[in-house]
């Protein structure tokens, strides 16, 4: 029963990381730069399920497909394996008057898809809400269990 608190907590942590990256992406959606290397790229968290004996096996590599549970293994929530930068093409605009324009007059804008980010934000906040409800149900169940036999 007490695992529910950890599980819902891990879910809320993961979703708040996701909301954070959405906020960062939206805030930087128009952050121009003068070269491909300097420009901001959209960031997204990679989620992965946590299993009882998979906790120790993390070695920094981001591979959500590698972490499949073995038969009958019970899950212990969700974790954020890392943040990836989007590989979508950058937005290169011809703006010679821009102070950050390069020699040819081009400015680079981030590859943030604002529509996608807004959808992501709604999904993350809904999932956060689900985890809060889980926590509340688990709390009620524990309280009722504590009063057993009284």
């Amino acid at each position, binding site marked *: *029963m007490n695992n529910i608190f950890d599980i819902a907590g891990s879910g809320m942590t*993961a979703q708040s990381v996701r909301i954070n990256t959405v906020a960062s992406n939206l805030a930087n959606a128009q952050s121009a730069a003068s070269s491909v290397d300097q420009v901001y790229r959209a960031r997204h968290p990679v989620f992965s*399920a946590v299993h009882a004996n998979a906790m120790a096996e993390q070695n920094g590599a981001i591979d959500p497909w590698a972490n499949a549970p073995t038969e009958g293994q019970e899950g212990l929530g*969700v974790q954020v394996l890392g943040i990836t930068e989007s590989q979508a093409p950058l937005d290169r605009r011809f703006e010679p008057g821009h102070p950050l324009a390069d020699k040819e007059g081009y400015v680079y804008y981030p590859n943030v898809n604002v529509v996608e980010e807004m959808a992501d934000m709604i999904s993350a906040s809904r999932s956060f809400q689900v985890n809060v409800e889980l926590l509340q*149900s688990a709390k009620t169940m524990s309280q009722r*269990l504590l009063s057993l036999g009284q």
Partner: protein
Amino acid sequence: MPAISFSNALGVHESALYLRSRRAEVLSNNLANADTPNFKARDVDFNALLEQASAGQRASGFGSDTPSRTNSKHLNLGDIEANGDLLYRTPNQPSIDGNTVEEHQEMARFAKNGQDFESTLYFLNSKFRGLQNAIRGEV
């Protein structure tokens, strides 16, 4: 006559309570992983597990303190936490990232499981009240 045997007095409800709380964990894990790519939703077969648990209880017979297991699949109370009985859910609408969690369904199951947990608690409370009344000699 042995002293009061709680497993005989409480019947199936003791195992049921444990199974309900474990199922709540499995379902909440599904919901926490609703956005995890390639996550497969799990569930326990409650009826089968409870059947095993109560079969183990019946096999032990009344009055014996140590339940005997006549079949290796029988569950003693300590054994219910064995993990080999988690099944995978078949999704109605599989998603492209390999995730099989259907949030609304899991939420409904979680709510129902919570209600079943409540009713098991109610039964257990009634049993305890009955025992108390018997001990006090009241009606």
